[in-house]
């Protein structure tokens, strides 16, 4: 597991994507800066998941160029853990085959502590709560020597309180293990508390309607002026 990103590049150039007759993305240009937390917000069905799948390489664009450098791993909305593997076995999926047993042991211990799941190492996912499962997912992508993390509404299946807690957990974890993050959410407050930069997307065919940069340091209180200003701007942009 790395503590810092060594190299990461993620660039979309004139990317379009359509499913049959449905054009989802039209000539999208996007540069994800190394080390930033980029948050995408936009209406349901506008193509956020599609965009992440293009970034990760799970699907190929209909046209355009995608440049990637660095290891990319995804945190899924839910059920991304293999239910037949324990917490430790799931996290170990990310380890490189070159590591020896002692290195694995040490990293596992560090990761388990990082996500506060001591004592649950041998549990299976169905024996964990939703928040615990998402923390295991985060540990798994950190184990994988990843440079870039794609997160598709990772906390949206959780209850409100757990969601708040996970938001600050993620900030804490990213302070220790710096990564480039592309984070998709419906939750505007979540976006403004997490992001270095927020892109507001329009309805299909999707374009970027507005870009906000938030400079104030994390963790940010929800009454922080930078958070409130950003929320106001985004709500106006979405005509809500």
């Amino acid at each position, binding site marked *: 597991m790395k503590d810092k990103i060594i190299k990461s590049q993620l660039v979309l150039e004139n990317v379009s994507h359509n499913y049959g007759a449905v054009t989802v993305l039209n000539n999208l240009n996007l540069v994800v800066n190394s080390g930033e937390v980029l948050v995408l917000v936009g209406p349901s069905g506008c193509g956020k998941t599609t965009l992440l799948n293009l970034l*990760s390489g*799970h699907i190929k664009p209909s046209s355009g160029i995608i440049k990637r450098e660095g290891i990319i*791993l*995804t945190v*899924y909305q839910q*059920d*991304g853990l*293999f*239910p*037949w*593997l324990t917490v430790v076995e799931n996290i170990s*999926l*990310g380890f490189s085959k070159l590591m020896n047993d002692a290195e694995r042991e040490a990293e596992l211990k560090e990761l388990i502590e990082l996500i506060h799941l001591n004592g649950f190492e041998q549990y*299976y*996912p*169905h024996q964990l709560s939703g928040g615990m499962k998402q923390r295991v997912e985060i540990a798994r992508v950190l184990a*994988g020597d990843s440079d870039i993390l794609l997160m598709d509404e990772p906390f949206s299946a959780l209850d409100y309180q757990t969601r708040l807690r996970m938001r600050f957990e993620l900030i804490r974890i990213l302070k220790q293990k710096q990564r480039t993050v592309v984070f998709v959410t419906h939750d505007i407050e979540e976006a403004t508390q997490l992001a270095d930069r927020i892109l507001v997307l329009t309805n299909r065919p999707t374009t970027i309607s507005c870009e906000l940069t938030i400079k104030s340091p994390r963790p940010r209180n929800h009454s922080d002026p930078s958070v409130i200003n950003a929320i106001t701007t985004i709500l106006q942009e979405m005509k809500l």
Partner: protein
Amino acid sequence: MTETTIFRNESTKPISSKTANIFGFLLPGIVLITLLLVWSLISFTNLFPTYAFPSPLAVLKSFTEEIIAGRLLNDIVASLWRVSVGFVLSALLGIPFGLWLGQHINARRAFVPMLNFFRFLSPLAWIPFAILWFHIGDKPAIFLIFMASFFPLALATMSAVATIPNIYFSVAKDYDIKGFSLITKVVFPAVLPQIITSLRVSCGIAWVIIVAAEMVGCQDGLGYGIWEARNGLRLDAAVCYMIVIGLLGMIIDRLLNQLTKLPNIRWGYER
């Protein structure tokens, strides 16, 4: 497949409290004793002639006879052996075949109609061929067991593969699991709970078929025991064989059910 859900809930409801435990023994016990009483009553009133309706006592007597003569144990071993061999063979071939079918759409197109055809063809229809091809002994019975369990197993495995959530394949791709290890590390464990359910179903079928198979192609075994009892008009012995067949079937199913308690399989029954 519809039959794959039959056993699902049984072990998901843990009977934890003491009263539940007592009822677990008491209620079936009451039913059993009532059944025995009704049986005794009917045989006591001589509604049927004695040779056609043996009394519980006569059955108990022939039980001890069969055990002392060693026939019963010999027949149990013979039947268990045939079912085990036929069943293991069909699992060894049927499960990998199902895994392969599940991953290749064209293979499915090619094979599924044929598999369905044979699934609906009663394995007993193969009896004449079994005897002509394999003569008498273990082989025809094993062949029939194989024919009874191979097709449902392959089909159930195949449809289980089709229901694997796409996300598991995305995750596998993220962590560079591909080729043969995709099958052993993702596809197989993902369908294992469903495979075990279908093993229980097809083992039940196999246990039913063995009785019929042994009536025609064998010189021993539990099915043969019933057939011979009929020929000697010893229905008391036939009933004693029937009891053994039913009990053994229950025990085998219990044993297979233990598999569903393994922690890396348990998740499949917790949803």
